[in-house]
C-alpha cells in the first residue's frame, strides 16, 4: 500500500519544515495511515454546475480494492441513462497507470493513453488522472511552509507528478493541524497557474478509526465551473477480489 486517496486520507500531525525527505516521509505516512481498509464500495452523486449555476447530475457506483503498489478502482455510471454502464477501470502502476474505459454504446473497451489522462472525466472538472489513487512513488514530495486555512493552521505538502501526460505541474495538499485531515488540494496547470481547487467536507467515521470525506468539491478557477461529488452508502471490507477488477470483466 503506497497510495493516497486524497479525499479519503486521514492525517497525523506533521512537522513544519521544507525538505524533500520530510515531504516524502509525510506522504508515506499518509499512505500508511490510509491503509488497511481492504476494499470500499460507495454510491456517488456527481453534480456538474456551469458558470451560470446550471446543474446536471450523474450517478456513479465506485469500488476500490486495496493493493500493494496502488489501489485498483472501478467507477460505473448509473445515470444519465445513455451513459449507464460506462465503466472506468484504473490500475495504478509503478511507472505509469493503466486505465480502461468501457463504452456500452460501442460495446467496446478503450485504453486511456497517457496523452488522454488530463481530459475531462464524464464532462466533470475531474480529469481521468484524478480518478485514480495518488501514488507516493510517482510523485516528488516537498513539504512547504505551513499556512493558515480558515481559522486553523495547515501543513502543506506539494506533489509533483513524475509520470507522463499529467495536466498538472504540481498539486498542493492542505492538511489541517487541528483536525489532522486533508482540507483541500490546489491543482496547478502545466503553465504553473492555479487551475483548480478540490475541497473535502463532511467527514464521517465509516468504521472505527476510518474516516472518509463524503463531499468533494472541485472548482475550476479558469471556467468557474464546479463539480460536487457526494458519497453515500460507503462500505468497507466487502470481500472484493482482484478478478472483479480485471479488464476482461468490462466486456
Amino acid at each position, binding site marked *: 500500500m503506497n497510495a493516497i486517496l486524497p479525499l479519503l486520507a486521514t492525517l497525523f500531525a506533521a512537522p513544519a519544515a521544507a525538505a524533500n525527505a520530510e515531504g516524502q516521509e509525510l506522504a508515506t505516512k499518509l499512505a500508511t495511515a490510509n491503509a488497511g481498509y481492504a476494499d470500499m*464500495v*460507495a*454510491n456517488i452523486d456527481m453534480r*456538474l454546475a*456551469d458558470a451560470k449555476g*446550471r446543474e*446536471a*447530475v450523474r450517478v456513479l*457506483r465506485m469500488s476500490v480494492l486495496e493493493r500493494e503498489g496502488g489501489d485498483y478502482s472501478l467507477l460505473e455510471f448509473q*445515470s*444519465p*441513462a*445513455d*451513459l*449507464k*454502464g460506462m465503466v472506468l477501470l484504473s*490500475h495504478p*502502476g509503478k*511507472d*505509469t497507470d*493503466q486505465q480502461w474505459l468501457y463504452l*456500452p454504446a*460501442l*460495446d*467496446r473497451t478503450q*485504453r486511456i*493513453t*497517457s*496523452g*488522454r489522462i*488530463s*481530459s*475531462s472525466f464524464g*464532462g466533470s472538472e475531474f480529469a481521468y488522472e484524478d480518478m485514480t489513487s495518488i501514488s507516493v512513488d510517482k510523485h516528488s514530495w516537498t513539504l512547504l511552509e505551513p499556512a493558515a486555512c480558515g481559522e486553523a493552521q495547515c501543513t502543506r505538502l506539494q506533489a509533483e507528478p513524475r509520470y*507522463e*501526460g499529467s*495536466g498538472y505541474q504540481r498539486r498542493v495538499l492542505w492538511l489541517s493541524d487541528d483536525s489532522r485531515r486533508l482540507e483541500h488540494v490546489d491543482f496547478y496547470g502545466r503553465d504553473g497557474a492555479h487551475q483548480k481547487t478540490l475541497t473535502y467536507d463532511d467527514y464521517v467515521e*465509516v*468504521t472505527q478509526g476510518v474516516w472518509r470525506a463524503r463531499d468533494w468539491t472541485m472548482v475550476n478557477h479558469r*471556467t468557474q465551473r464546479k463539480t460536487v461529488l457526494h458519497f453515500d*452508502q*460507503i*462500505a*468497507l*471490507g*466487502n*470481500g*472484493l*477480489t482482484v*478478478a*472483479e477488477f*480485471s*479488464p*476482461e*470483466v468490462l466486456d
Partner: protein
Amino acid sequence: MMLFALLGASALAQDTFSTRGRAAAESRVFVTRPPRTAQRGGVTGSLVGEPDFHWKKPKGRWELRLTPFFRADSHDFARTHVDLRHAELKLRGESNFRFAAGIGQFRFSTMVGAAPIDVINQTDQVEDLDGRAKLGQPYVQVSTGDSELQVSAWYLPYQRARTFPSLEGRLRPLFGIDAANPTWESVLGAWHPSGAIRVTRDTSWMRVAGTGYAGISRDPRFIAQFTDARVGVAYDRLHQLSVDAAAFSDVVTFKVEGATSWWRADHLFSWRASAGLQTIHQGLFGSRADMLLFAEYHVDRRPIGTPVTTNNNDVFLGMRLAHNDAQSTVWTAGGSVDLTTGFLSGRLQLDRRLRDHWVAGVQANAFLGSRIATEWWLGGESYLQGHLSYYF
C-alpha cells in the same frame, strides 16, 4: 457495526440486477429518388428497441446478460427484424479461469474505417453499411490468464446468415440479394461448427494478439442465379490466421492488423492488412473539448472465387470531437477513399443529450464515385439520418 453491516448489504445488493437500453425513432431521408424501380421511399422511418438486462452475483462469480434487439421499418420488410445481441452466462472461478456460453458478440479489431480481423460475429448489414452492427453469435468460450496474458478459445456451433435489404429497400446493389436461401460449402450448412483461439499479451505500452480461426466464413460470396433475378449468397469454408497490435505512446496510438485466409476446399489464398494511428488533442483552442484524429490504410487482396471486399486499397481519415459538456455533445466525421477507383464515402454526425433520458442525433452520409468501383451502386444513395432516442 450493525450500521456498517446494513450499509454494506444494501450497497452490494444493487449489483444483482440492472436494466439499461434504448428505444428510438429513426428516419432516413434520401437525397435522390430510388434508383431501382422496385425500391420504395425517399423518406423512411424506423422504431428501434434494445433493452439490456444484467444479473450479476455479488463479487462477480457469475453474470447473466440478455439483450434483445428489434427494428420495425416503414419501407423495407427485411430491415424489420428481431435479434438476440446477447443471451449469455459468464462464470468466473477463484483462479483466472473463465467460462461463458450463450449468444454474444466479440470484436478484435481496433481499426475505425474497417475491421479486417473480426471473424466471429456476422454483420447485421440492414442496420448500417459501416458493418459495426453485429448479429448475436452462439458460442461456448473458455478463457484463462491475467491482465498481462490471456488465452481464449471459442466453439461456435452455428453460423448466422448476413442480413441484406429487400428488393424494396434502399442501400442495396442493382440486383437484389436472395439472403433467405444461402448456399453452404459444408453439408452441415449453418450447423457446421467453427472454432477460434486467441492469445493476447498486454503491457503498459503495447498490446499484441494472434488469432486462429477454422470454420465457415462470415463474409458471403455472391453468385448469379438462373432462376431468380437476385444474386444468391454462398458461405464457404475458411481458415484464417491474424495478428493485431497496438502501441500506446503519450498522445499517439499506432495500430497494425493483418490476416491470411484460405477459402474453400481448393484453398484460395487471400491476405489483408491495415495500419493506422490515432492522436488526441486536449483542450482544443483553449476550450475543454478533446479531439481524436484517425488515419488508416487498408489493403485487401482476394482472388476471384472469394467474397468481394470494398476495402482493397483504401485510405480512411476520421475525427471525433467531444465537447466534454454536460450534454455530452460529440461530433464525429469520417471519410474513406478507394485509391484505385477514387470512390469516396463520408459521414458527418452530431449527437447530443437533450434531457436526462433523451438523446438526439443527425448524420449525413455521402457516396461519390464512378462505375468502376465495387461499390458504384451506392452512388445515388446518399442520405441524411436522424434519431431521437430514449435511454432507460
